C-alpha cells in the first residue's frame, strides 16, 4: 500500500500551461526550430517491395546548384551498430519493403531536395514479394514473446472439452484492419552535428521520449550519451508512432553528419508516414466461448493471427486482454505471425488491448443475444473475483460499477432498437480495460530557485497534458501552491525519463517527482534556500507486486443507419471509466474522449487499404485514409467513478491515455447489429456491409 498524496492541486480543473502558446502558434515544433542557415533533406524510397538496389544514378543530382549532399547505400558512412535493421539506414543494398529508405538528398531548399530525390533513377534487381496476410498461411509462426514481454501462448484447463460439453457455444472469427497512427505533426527532425572535439549532435526531434530517442541514436552511431542532446518541448501527437525513433531520425542524423556545422531538417510527408512510421497490424481473431444457459462462461479462447515485417519483428499482444477479462475455468490464447515483405508495424494507441478487445467484446454481445441475456448482465455474471491470469487480487476493479453507471446515464434499459423516420436506431455496449503500468527508470530533480520550486524531468507532453499535471503532482508532494511550481520537460539535459507510452507517463514521472519532492522536504524542510536541490528515482517509490492493477471502463453507443443508403451515424457515445484518481479533469476528459473518438474512427472509418500487389497502402494520404471528422462525432461524454486505489502509486492514478480507444469499436458493431440485424465482424463497419440487409 502506498500513502496517497493529499489532493489539493491534484483534481483541479486547471487549463493547459502550454495552451496559450499552441493557440497562438508560437510553440515551436521540431521542424520549425529556429536555426541558422538550415539545409533540407528529402528521402529516396524504394519502389519495389523486395530485391536489391543495383545502381543509383546520382551524378546529375550532385552537380545541381543548391544540392549539398546525396547519400545512398553506395556512399553513406557505415554505422556503428546495424543489428536493428530498421535503423540500419543506407547500410546495404537489400530492399525489404516498398517505401524503404534507400537514399537522402540534402539541398538548400526543401522543394529542391524533394524534386532531386524524386528524380534519382534507381536500378533494382527485383524479387517476387509476399505481402498478403491470411489465417491459413502455412508459414505462420509463434514469436518468442509478444509486445511488452507477454507470453505468446497461454492455456489453462481444457477449452476443447468445455466447448464439447457446454450448453451454449460460440465460435466466430473477427478481424481488425490495418491502421496508421497519423498524428497531426509528421515525424520531423532538425539535426545539427558539430564536429569539434569528439563531435556533438543536437536533435530537435518530435518524440514521445527524449531519452529513449537519444539512447537509440547513440547505439546506432556509436556515440556516448554526453555527445547527444535531444530536445522536444512539444509534440503534435504520436499515438505510439513516436514512442521509439523510426528510420527517419537515423537518416536525418546521417545527413547532418555529412554536413557538419549545418543544421539539417527533415519532415516526412504524409504519404511517407504510411511506409516509415509504424502502424497497427491487421488482426484476425478466432474466438471461442462456452457457457451454461445462465451465461456463466466455462471456456474463453482467442487465437490471433497477425503480421510483422521480415525486416524486424513486432508482435502485437492482441490476445492478452482475453486472459484476464472474464472468469472462466478453461482458457486459451495464442498468437501467430506471418512475416511479410511489408513496412514494420509498431505501437499504436493501446497496442494489444485496442484490437484485442474487439473480438471478445463483440463475441460477448453475440453470446448474450444467443442466450437472451442482457449484455451488461452477461458481463456481470462473469466478473472474476481475482485476476484469472495471475490469481492475484485486483488493486481495484470497478467494471460492474462502470457498466451500471453507464447504463443509468445512457438510458440503457428498454428496447435496444427502434426506427426513427428514415433511420434504423440501435444501441450497443462494450467493456474497456487497460493495464496500469509504471516504467523502471525515471529520475526527477526538485530545486528551489528565485522563490519558486522548479522540477526537471525529461518527460514528454504529446498533447496529453504533462506540462500541466506534473506541476499539480509536484505541488501536492511539496505541499505548496501549484502556481509556485514549474516543471521543465522535453530535454535530455534534464534527468532521465521513460517513454510516454503504455499510459505510464503520469504514473512513472509522477512517482519520481513525488520521491524527489519528499526528499527535498526531508533535506531542506519547509523553508529552503535558493539553489537547494534534491532528486528522486521512480525505483525509490513504493511498489506493490501483490495486486493486479488495471483500469476498466464501459462504453455505450447509439448508432443510426440510414434505411435507404446504409450510411452510419453515431449521435451518442458515452463512456464511464474507473481510472484511479484523476489528476486534472480537463486534460483527463480530453484524453478519454480523444480515445473514444479514435475508437469510433477505427469502427467506422480508418482502414489502410492494403494493396498486396504493390505491397503498399493504396489510400496513403489523409484525403483517402479517412479519420473521423468533427461532423461524425455527436454527443460524446466521458465520466469517471470516484476510485481510490492505494496500490498503484502515490497519486492513486492508473493512466488514461489509452483506455478510451479500447472497446469502442465493439460497442459500435453491437449497436449497428441492434439497429440492422447485421453483425459486422470485420472492421471497418461501412455501408456496403449493411446494404443487403436494409428494408
Amino acid at each position, binding site marked *: 500500500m502506498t500513502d496517497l498524496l493529499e489532493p489539493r492541486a491534484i483534481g483541479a480543473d486547471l487549463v493547459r500551461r502550454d495552451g496559450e502558446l499552441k493557440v497562438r502558434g508560437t510553440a515551436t515544433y521540431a521542424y520549425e526550430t529556429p536555426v541558422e542557415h538550415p539545409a533540407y533533406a528529402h528521402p529516396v524510397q524504394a519502389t519495389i517491395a523486395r530485391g536489391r538496389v543495383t545502381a543509383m544514378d546520382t551524378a546529375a543530382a550532385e552537380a545541381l546548384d543548391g544540392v549539398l549532399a546525396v547519400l545512398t547505400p553506395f556512399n553513406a558512412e557505415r554505422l556503428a551498430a546495424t543489428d536493428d535493421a530498421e535503423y540500419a539506414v543506407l547500410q546495404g543494398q537489400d530492399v525489404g519493403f516498398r517505401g524503404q529508405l534507400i537514399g537522402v538528398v540534402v539541398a538548400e531548399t526543401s522543394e529542391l531536395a524533394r524534386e532531386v530525390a*524524386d528524380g534519382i533513377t534507381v536500378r533494382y534487381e527485383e524479387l517476387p514479394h509476399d505481402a498478403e496476410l491470411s489465417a491459413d498461411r502455412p508459414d505462420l509462426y509463434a514469436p518468442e514473446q509478444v509486445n511488452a514481454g507477454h507470453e505468446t501462448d497461454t492455456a489453462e484447463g481444457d477449452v476443447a472439452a468445455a466447448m464439447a460439453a457446454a450448453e451454449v457455444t460460440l465460435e466466430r472469427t473477427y478481424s481488425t484492419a490495418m491502421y496508421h497512427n497519423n498524428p497531426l505533426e509528421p515525424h520531423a527532425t532538425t539535426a545539427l552535428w558539430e564536429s569539434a572535439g569528439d563531435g556533438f549532435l543536437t536533435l530537435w526531434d518530435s518524440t514521445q521520449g527524449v531519452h529513449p530517442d537519444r539512447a537509440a541514436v547513440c547505439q546506432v552511431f556509436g556515440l556516448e550519451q554526453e555527445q547527444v542532446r535531444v530536445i522536444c518541448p512539444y509534440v503534435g501527437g504520436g499515438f505510439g508512432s513516436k514512442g521509439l525513433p523510426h528510420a527517419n531520425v537515423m537518416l536525418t542524423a546521417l545527413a547532418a553528419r555529412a554536413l557538419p556545422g549545418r543544421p539539417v531538417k527533415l519532415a516526412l510527408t504524409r504519404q511517407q508516414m504510411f511506409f516509415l512510421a509504424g502502424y497497427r497490424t491487421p488482426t484476425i481473431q478466432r474466438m471461442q466461448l462456452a457457457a451454461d444457459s445462465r451465461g456463466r462462461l466455462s471456456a474463453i479462447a482467442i487465437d490471433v493471427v497477425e503480421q510483422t515485417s521480415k525486416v524486424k519483428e513486432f508482435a502485437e499482444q492482441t490476445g492478452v486482454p482475453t486472459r484476464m477479462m472474464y472468469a472462466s475455468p478453461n482458457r486459451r490464447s495464442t498468437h501467430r505471425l506471418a512475416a511479410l515483405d511489408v513496412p514494420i508495424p509498431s505501437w499504436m494507441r493501446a497496442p494489444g488491448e485496442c484490437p484485442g478487445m474487439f473480438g471478445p467484446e463483440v463475441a460477448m454481445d453475440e453470446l448474450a443475444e444467443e442466450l437472451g441475456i442482457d449484455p451488461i448482465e452477461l458481463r456481470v455474471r462473469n466478473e472474476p473475483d481475482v485476476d484469472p491470469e495471475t490469481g492475484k487480487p485486483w488493486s481495484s476493479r470497478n467494471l460492474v460499477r462502470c457498466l451500471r453507471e453507464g447504463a443509468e446515464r445512457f438510458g440503457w434499459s428498454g428496447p435496444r432498437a427502434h426506427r426513427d423516420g428514415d433511420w434504423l436506431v440501435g444501441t450497443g455496449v462494450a467493456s474497456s480495460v487497460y493495464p496500469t503500468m509504471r516504467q523502471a527508470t525515471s529520475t526527477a530533480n526538485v530545486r528551489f530557485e528565485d522563490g519558486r520550486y522548479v522540477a526537471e524531468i525529461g518527460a514528454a507532453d504529446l498533447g496529453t497534458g504533462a506540462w500541466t499535471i506534473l506541476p499539480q503532482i509536484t505541488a501536492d508532494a511539496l505541499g505548496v501552491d501549484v502556481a509556485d511550481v514549474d516543471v521543465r520537460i522535453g530535454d535530455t539535459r534534464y534527468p532521465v525519463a521513460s517513454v510516454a507510452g503504455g499510459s505510464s507517463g503520469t504514473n512513472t514521472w509522477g512517482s519520481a517527482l513525488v520521491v524527489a519532492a519528499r526528499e527535498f522536504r526531508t533535506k531542506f524542510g519547509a523553508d529552503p534556500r535558493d539553489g537547494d536541490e534534491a532528486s528522486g528515482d521512480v525505483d525509490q517509490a513504493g511498489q506493490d507486486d501483490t495486486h493486479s492493477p488495471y483500469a476498466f471502463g464501459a462504453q455505450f453507443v447509439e448508432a443510426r443507419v440510414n434505411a435507404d443508403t*446504409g*450510411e452510419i451515424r453515431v449521435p451518442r457515445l458515452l463512456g464511464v471509466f474507473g481510472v484511479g484518481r484523476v489528476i486534472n479533469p480537463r486534460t483527463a476528459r480530453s484524453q478519454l474522449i480523444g480515445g473514444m473518438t479514435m475508437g469510433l474512427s477505427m469502427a*467506422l472509418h480508418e482502414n489502410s487499404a492494403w494493396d498486396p500487389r*504493390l505491397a503498399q497502402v493504396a489510400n496513403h494520404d489523409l484525403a483517402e485514409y*479517412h479519420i473521423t*471528422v468533427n461532423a461524425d462525432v455527436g454527443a460524446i461524454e466521458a465520466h469517471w467513478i470516484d476510485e481510490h486505489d492505494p496500490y498503484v502509486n502515490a497519486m492513486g492514478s492508473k493512466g488514461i491515455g489509452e483506455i478510451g480507444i479500447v472497446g469502442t469499436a465493439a460497442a459500435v458493431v453491437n449497436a449497428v447489429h441492434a439497429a440492422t440485424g447485421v453483425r459486422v465482424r470485420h472492421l471497418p463497419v461501412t455501408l*456496403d456491409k449493411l446494404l*443487403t440487409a436494409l428494408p
Partner: protein
Amino acid sequence: MKPFAYARPGDVVEAVRDVVAEPNAVFLAGGTNLVDHLRLGVARPDLVVDVRTLTSREVTGLPDGGLRLGAATTNSQVAADPRVRERYPVLAQALLAGATGQLRNMATTGGNPLQRTRCVYFSDVTTPCNKREPGSGCSAVGGYTRYHAVLGTPAALPDPHAPETCIATHPSDMAVALAALDAQVQVLGPDGERTIPFTELHRLPGDDPSRDTVLQHGELITAIDLPVLPAGTRSAYRKVRDRASYAFALVSVAAVVTPDGELRLALGGVAHKPWRATRAEEVLRGQQLTEDAVRAAITAELAAAQPQPGIDSGNGFKIPLVARTVLATVRGLLPEEQS
C-alpha cells in the same frame, strides 16, 4: 516540385495566348487541385498561367432568366448566392457537400469541374497509370476500386496493361448538379469563343484516358450558364459517402423534377464523367413519375453496370446503392400524394 515559370497576364486573351504558345502550360485558378498535383509530381508543367483574377468573379442574371457563373466565382460564393439557392438548390447542395469550407473559399467554378480523378494510383507517381502516364497501364484494375467506375467501363476486369484502360471516376459534386441542370460552358480558345453543353464537356476514356474533357490545349472556361427552369421545378442533391463530411462521394445523385413530372437525373461517383442517366430518363418519358416507374428506370440505366472487383470486395455495392439513392432522392421531390 519541378521548377516552372509563373505568368499573370493582363487579360483572358493574353492568358489563352500564353498557354497556346507553350505546349506544357496550364491554367491556375484556386489551386486546390493543381497545387497538390504540382507537389506530388502528378502535374509537371513548365508554365503556370494564373487566371484567377482574369475571369469574372460574379454571378449575373441572363436575359432569359438563367444565371451566369463567372469562372472565378468561388464554390462558397455560388453556394451562398440567394438566386442559386432558390432556383437551383441541387447546385447549392452539391457545392456544400464538397470538400470543406476552407477549400470551397478557394475553389472556383472554372476549376471545380476540371479537377482530376481521386484514383489513388493516379496521384502516386510510382505506380502505372494510363491517365497520368499514357501507355503505362492501369493499377486500379483489381486494386483499390472503392471509388471507381461501374458505368461507362468496358468489362468487369479490363486488361490492366492495355493503354486505353481506365476505370476512374470524376470526383466533382458540382459537376453532377451541372450535368442534371443542362448547364452550358462558355469557353475561350485560340480560335475564339464557343459554347459546350455541360454534359458534353467530360468524356469517357475512349482510347485516351489522359484526357478528361473535350477542351483543347489553351481553351479557357470563362463562365458556366445555368438555363432557366420552369417555375415550380424541384431539385435536390444527395451524396453518399464513407464519413459525414470531407469525403468524396461513393455515389451521388442530382435530380431535377419539373412541374410536369419530367425527371432529369445525373449520377456521381460511378463513371469517368458526371453521368447523365439518359437511359432512365428515356424510360420515364411520358410516364407518371411514381416510385415504381423510377425503380424500373434506374434498373434499366444500371443494366450495363459493371462491378470492379478489388481490395475490400471491390465496388459492386455501388450498383444497388445507386438504385437506392436515386429512389430516396426522387421520393423526396415527388408531391406528397405520389410518394
